[in-house]
C-alpha cells in the first residue's frame, strides 16, 4: 500500500509540529522516520494513521485521498511507543482483539492467534496478562496484535525505544526478517540513526517539523544534504567550513606535504573500534575512529605526536534549506 503525505501542516497550540511536510512511501517498502525529539516524526506517523487530523494538506493511501477517513477504516496496524497493551486482557485476547471485534468465527480466530503467537515467539504465554511480560515480550505482543487483522500498512512509533540495547538489536533483526516475509508496507519512527540506517531501506530525516532529506541509508550517510543530516546520522568533526567523519581522518607517523601535526590526547578501545582524540597544532580538536588493526599497527599512546590528513570531507553552502552538497576530497 503506497502512502503519500502532501503539504501536511499540524499545530498544537503555538507549537508547529509539522510544517508543510510531503513524503511518499512506496508500497512494500520499509521506511524510517528519523529525527530528534520534537521533530514531528511521531506526529507525521499519527497523521498517516488517522489519529491526528492535519490542519492543512492531505494524506493519500494507495492513491486515494484518506485525510478525513477514520483510523478504524484505514486498514493500518499501529504499534505504540509504550505498546499500549490492553492491561485487563490476556495476551491472547490482546492479539485477538482486531479479529474478535470483526466477529470472525472462533476457530479462525484461535488458529490465527496461535499462528501469530508463534511468529512473535510468545507461544505458551497466551494466558498471561501484559503486566506479567517483559518489555521485549510486550513489544512483540503489540506487534502480533497490530498484525492480526492483516493490515496493509504497519506503523511503528519508536518501536524499540524503551528496551535495553541487546533486546533492541534482536528485535531489529527480527523486524527485518518479518518484513522480508510479509512484505507489508512499514513505516517506523526512531531517534536512533543506527537503527534507521540498519533497518530501513529508505530514511526520512526530520527536524523542527520539516523534512531535511529522504534517501536510502547509504546515500544519507555518504551524501547528506545539509549539516543537520550530516551530524545527525553519524559523528562528525567540524573543521571550519568542512565536515569530516571520524573514520575519514588518517593518522600516520610519517609527515608529508598535506599532513598536519597533532598530539594524541586520549585513546578509548571499544572492541573492534578504537577512538582517538587528538589536538592539532593549530588547537583544533579531532575525533578519529580506527579499526583495531589500524590502531595496533600505529601503536599509539597518549602524548604521541602524529600526522593527520582528511581522506574525505564535505562542505555545504551557507544558505539554509536544501543545499547542493559539494563533495571534495583532500589529496
Amino acid at each position: 500500500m503506497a502512502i503519500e503525505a502532501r503539504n501536511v501542516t499540524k499545530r498544537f497550540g503555538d507549537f508547529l509540529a509539522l510544517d508543510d511536510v510531503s513524503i511518499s512511501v512506496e508500497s512494500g517498502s520499509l521506511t524510517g522516520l528519523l529525527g530528534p525529539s520534537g521533530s514531528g516524526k511521531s506526529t507525521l506517523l499519527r497523521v498517516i494513521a488517522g489519529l491526528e487530523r492535519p490542519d492543512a494538506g492531505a494524506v493519500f493511501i494507495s492513491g486515494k485521498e484518506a485525510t478525513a477517513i477514520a483510523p478504524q477504516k484505514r486498514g493500518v496496524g499501529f504499534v505504540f511507543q509504550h505498546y499500549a497493551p490492553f492491561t485487563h486482557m490476556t495476551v491472547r485476547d490482546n492479539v485477538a482483539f482486531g479479529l474478535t471485534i470483526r466477529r470472525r468465527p472462533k476457530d479462525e480466530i484461535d488458529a490465527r492467534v496461535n499462528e501469530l503467537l508463534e511468529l512473535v515467539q510468545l507461544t505458551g504465554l497466551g494466558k498471561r496478562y501484559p503486566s506479567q511480560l517483559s518489555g521485549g515480550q510486550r513489544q512483540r505482543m503489540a506487534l502480533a496484535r497490530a498484525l492480526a487483522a492483516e493490515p496493509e500498512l504497519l506503523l511503528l512509533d519508536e518501536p524499540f525505544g524503551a528496551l535495553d540495547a541487546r533486546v533492541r538489536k534482536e528485535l531489529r533483526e527480527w523486524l527485518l526478517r518479518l518484513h522480508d516475509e510479509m512484505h507489508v508496507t512499514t513505516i517506523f519512527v526512531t531517534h536512533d540513526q543506527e537503527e534507521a540506517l540498519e533497518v530501513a531501506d529508505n530514511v526520512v530525516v526530520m527536524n523542527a517539523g520539516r523534512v531535511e532529506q529522504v534517501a536510502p541509508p547509504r546515500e544519507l550517510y555518504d551524501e547528506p544534504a545539509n549539516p543537520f543530516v550530516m551530524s545527525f546520522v553519524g559523528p562528525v568533526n567540524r573543521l571550519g567550513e568542512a565536515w569530516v567523519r571520524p573514520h575519514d581522518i588518517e593518522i600516520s607517523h610519517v609527515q608529508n606535504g598535506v599532513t598536519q601535526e597533532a598530539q594524541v590526547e586520549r585513546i578509548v578501545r571499544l572492541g573492534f573500534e578504537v577512538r582517538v582524540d587528538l589536538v592539532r597544532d593549530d588547537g583544533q580538536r579531532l575525533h578519529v575512529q580506527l579499526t583495531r588493526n589500524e590502531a595496533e599497527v600505529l601503536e599509539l599512546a597518549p602524548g604521541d605526536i602524529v600526522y593527520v590528513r582528511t581522506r574525505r570531507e564535505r562542505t555545504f553552502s551557507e544558505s539554509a534549506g536544501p543545499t547542493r552538497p559539494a563533495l571534495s576530497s583532500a589529496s
Partner: protein
Amino acid sequence: MIVRFGALGYLGAILVAPVSLIFWRAFEHGPHPFWAAISNATAVHALKLTLEITAISVPLNTGFGILCAVAIVRHRLPGMGFVNALVDLPLALSPVVVGLALYLLYGRGGWFGDLPFRVLFALPAMVLATIFVSLPFVVREVVPVLREIGTQQEEAAATLGASALTTFRRITLPAIRWAVAYGVVLTTARSLGEFGAVSIVSGGIAGRTQTLTQYVQASYENFDQTGAYAASVLLAMLAIATLLLITVVKRGDRSS
C-alpha cells in the same frame, strides 16, 4: 511511629469510638431487642423505601457520572471546566439548602409546581434530593483514573478497527471499572445515609414517606433508643456490606 499512632489515635477517637458505641448499644441486651426493633412494620417500610431510593439513584448517578467524566477528560469542549467545577456543587452545598431548593421548585407556586403527578412529599422528590447530594462521587473517582490511563489503549483499539462504542465498552469501561466500583460504593453509602435534603422534601410520614435515617431520628425523639440504635446499626451494616462486596470481588480479579 509517632505519626502512625497519632493517626490511629485520631481515627479511633473520631470515627471508631462513636460507631462502636452505636453497635454496643444496639446489641447491649442481645440480638432479640435488636431484631424486634428492626422488624416492626414502620422500620421495615423505612428500610424498603431507603433501598428503593438508593436503587433508583445509584444507577442514574453511575451512568451520568461515567458519561460526565469521559466528557470532562476526553472531550476538551468549551465549558467543560465549568462542568467540572459544577459537579462539586453538591459537596459544597448543605443538603438542607438542596432540600429547600427542591421544595421551592416543586412546591405550590414553584416552576414545576403543577405537574400531573405528585413530586413533593413522595418518592420522586426524595429520589431527586438523593441524586443531587450523591452526584459527585462517581465523577470524582473516575476522572483521575481516566486521566491516568491516557488515550493510548483507546487509540490502539481504534487502529484495530473498533468503533467508538466498542472501544468504550471493551477498553475504557474495563479500565475504569474499579474507579466506578468505588464511586458506586460512595454513592450508595451517601444515598443510604442522606438525611437533610430528603427530610425537607419527604414529609417524613411514618410508614409512608419515612426513610431509614428519618426513622432513626423519629425513634430517638420518641425515646425509643433501642429502635434508633438498631436502625443506625442497620444503616452502617448496609454501607459496610457494599464496601466488603467490592473488596471481595476485586481480590478475585487477576488482571488488576
